[in-house]
């Protein structure tokens, strides 16, 4: 009987100590916020980590303070947190998600616009849960305007507004002057040369689809080239990598031949689809260059690695070459291998320059306003960065103050970095 009592007492003591070891401290200070600048489907939760979380700062502080003492071990360290949710019409909380230990925030998505109540529990290493935090609730709110992009929108409006303004001003009769662009002046010379030599002009509108603005810009130049080939009765060959580009290019060339008064010369077979594959297209076009030796080659659009292969092959057959692209990585290749190159904005200015229409020239003037604003920001930014180098750092070693605020505003709000 005595030994039985001792066993019972021992079990009770063991049981008591076991329960105290598994008790996990709960997280606290749960806050639920609506996520800003979204379509009203997300909420953000933040909380203070459990005291038993190995990542809790207070534990680290204690460890640092008692550096000479052995670190305190947690009986049942937190391994994660369970987030529970209850929407307006639900009675019970359901699991919304889990996060690892040390994480004190959670983003709930795919929500409806109704009130959601949340609570968070810590999960112990033995799988037990702490008591829950207090309940916090919020309702996702839909924002029709992304306020983080207001600055970008403002500058876009200024640039677009100035383009529209100058187009309208040009329509009203305002005289605008555009500098000579050698590459565009040379188009007539190139087509004339092809006519004299009795050979074709080859026009490649890039290797991207019609949804790329460079392809559209390329087709606008094609319109002018086609008008000239129609006037001079020269051959025009337009291989394309995309079926849609082929279709639009046919319309463009058809229109150009009609406006030049030579619709009889238009042959849709000269504008054809080759393949979507980059190097398959390269093989077909360079083969054609070598066999048929075009007298003038035009590359207007988006190009990648094939740019130099085209340009060098055409160079070996003695063709005059004019290229225009907005791919900065391909510009050096075209500059090295072609006779004339339209660099970046010159390429986009081609349609206005070639048409000579006042409203189109107005768009170029509008671009200048954009360049002026960009230049202004460049100067202000460079000045701010230079001055900030001479500003003393604060006690924390980080630069603070209005100057730093201005730099942060420029880099984060204006540049969006």
């Amino acid at each position, binding site marked *: 009987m005595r030994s039985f009592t001792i066993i019972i007492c021992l079990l009770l003591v063991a049981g008591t100590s076991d329960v105290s070891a598994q008790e996990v401290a709960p997280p606290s200070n749960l806050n639920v916020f609506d996520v800003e*600048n979204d*379509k*009203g489907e997300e909420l953000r939760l933040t909380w203070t980590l459990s005291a038993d979380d190995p990542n809790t700062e207070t534990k680290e502080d204690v460890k640092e303070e008692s550096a000479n003492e052995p670190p305190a071990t947690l009986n049942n360290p937190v391994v994660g947190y369970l987030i529970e949710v209850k929407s307006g019409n639900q009675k019970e909380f359901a699991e919304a998600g889990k996060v690892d230990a040390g994480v004190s925030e959670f983003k709930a998505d795919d929500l409806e616009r109704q009130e959601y109540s949340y609570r968070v529990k810590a999960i112990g290493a033995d799988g037990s849960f702490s008591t829950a935090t207090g309940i916090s609730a919020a309702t996702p709110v*839909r*924002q*029709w305007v*992304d306020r983080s992009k207001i600055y970008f*929108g403002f500058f876009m409006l200024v640039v677009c507004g100035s*383009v529209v303004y100058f*187009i309208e001003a040009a329509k009203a009769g305002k005289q605008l002057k555009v500098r000579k662009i050698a590459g565009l002046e040379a188009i007539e010379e190139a087509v004339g040369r092809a006519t004299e030599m009795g050979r074709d002009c080859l026009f490649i509108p890039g290797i991207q689809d019609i*949804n790329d*603005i460079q392809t559209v810009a390329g087709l*606008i130049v094609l*319109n*002018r080239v086609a008008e000239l080939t129609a006037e001079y009765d020269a051959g025009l060959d337009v291989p394309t990598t*995309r*079926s*849609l580009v*082929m279709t*639009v290019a046919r*319309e*463009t060339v058809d*229109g*150009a031949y009609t406006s030049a008064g030579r619709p009889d010369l238009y042959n849709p*077979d000269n504008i*054809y*689809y*080759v*393949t979507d*594959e*980059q*190097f*398959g297209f*390269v*093989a077909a076009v360079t*083969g*054609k260059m070598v066999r048929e030796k075009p007298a003038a080659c035009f590359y207007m659009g988006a190009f990648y*690695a094939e740019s*130099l*292969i085209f*340009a*060098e*092959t055409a160079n070996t057959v003695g063709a005059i070459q004019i290229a225009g692209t*907005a791919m*900065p990585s391909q510009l050096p*290749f075209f500059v*090295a*291998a072609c006779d004339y190159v339209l660099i*970046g*904005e010159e*390429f986009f*200015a081609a*349609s*206005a320059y070639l*048409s000579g229409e006042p409203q*189109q020239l107005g*768009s170029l003037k509008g671009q200048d306003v*954009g*360049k002026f604003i*960009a230049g202004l920001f460049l100067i202000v930014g460079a000045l701010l960065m230079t001055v900030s180098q001479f500003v003393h750092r604060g006690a924390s070693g980080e630069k603070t103050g209005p100057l730093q605020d201005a730099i942060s505003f420029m880099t984060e709000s204006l540049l969006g970095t």
Partner: protein
Amino acid sequence: MLKRTVPLIIASIVGIVLILAKFSPPIQSWETEVVMWFDILAVFAFVLGAGNLNLNNLKKISERKAGWGYAAITLLAFWITLICGIGKLGVPPNEQYLGYAWSGSFEAEGSAFWWIFNYVYVPLASTMFATLAFYISSAAFRAFRANNVEASLLLLTALVVLVSQTSSGPMLSDLIPEESTWAIFKIDTIRGVLVNLFNTLGTRAVMIGIALGVVSTSLKVLMGVDQSYLGGD
């Protein structure tokens, strides 16, 4: 009307919606919808492209035009690849539906299409890409001829960048001590200035111009100021 005005209205509406979608979270998903519509359109256009490829090449063969043999090879390759892909020749069945011979993917490993792609197309494409190495040399030879001051500067710059990229390049200026005031003339430092300063400055200037050009051209398309790419009515 149908050939110019309707496409113009569609382009303007879609363009304006896409701009608004950038600034309004509730309609941001419309951008994806529009891209999906474009993909559907491109699929139908692909049939048009394939038809054009066949017609053009058949015409070349029948008229015995220069290079008609290549046209025959093109058609042969097109039809063999198409039949292998659509017919799923040699495609192992999907593990979930072993009873159905055609249940596997047309590009599954071991299929005829997979074989053509990996052992015919990829080596041919790589060969074409490899020719770029020779073309870079020939283009550089012409571009770097020191005919005038600008070309000489270009030659000098290219030489410094090229030499500094080689494994033994930096050794050329090893005699200059790191701590001395002459350290700025070490080949690595010069290359750093050329690549990080001058090159970045030039590229950014071009990029700003391109961005403004894109805005201007897009506006002209949206406003219908430039309709030349749409052809005649």
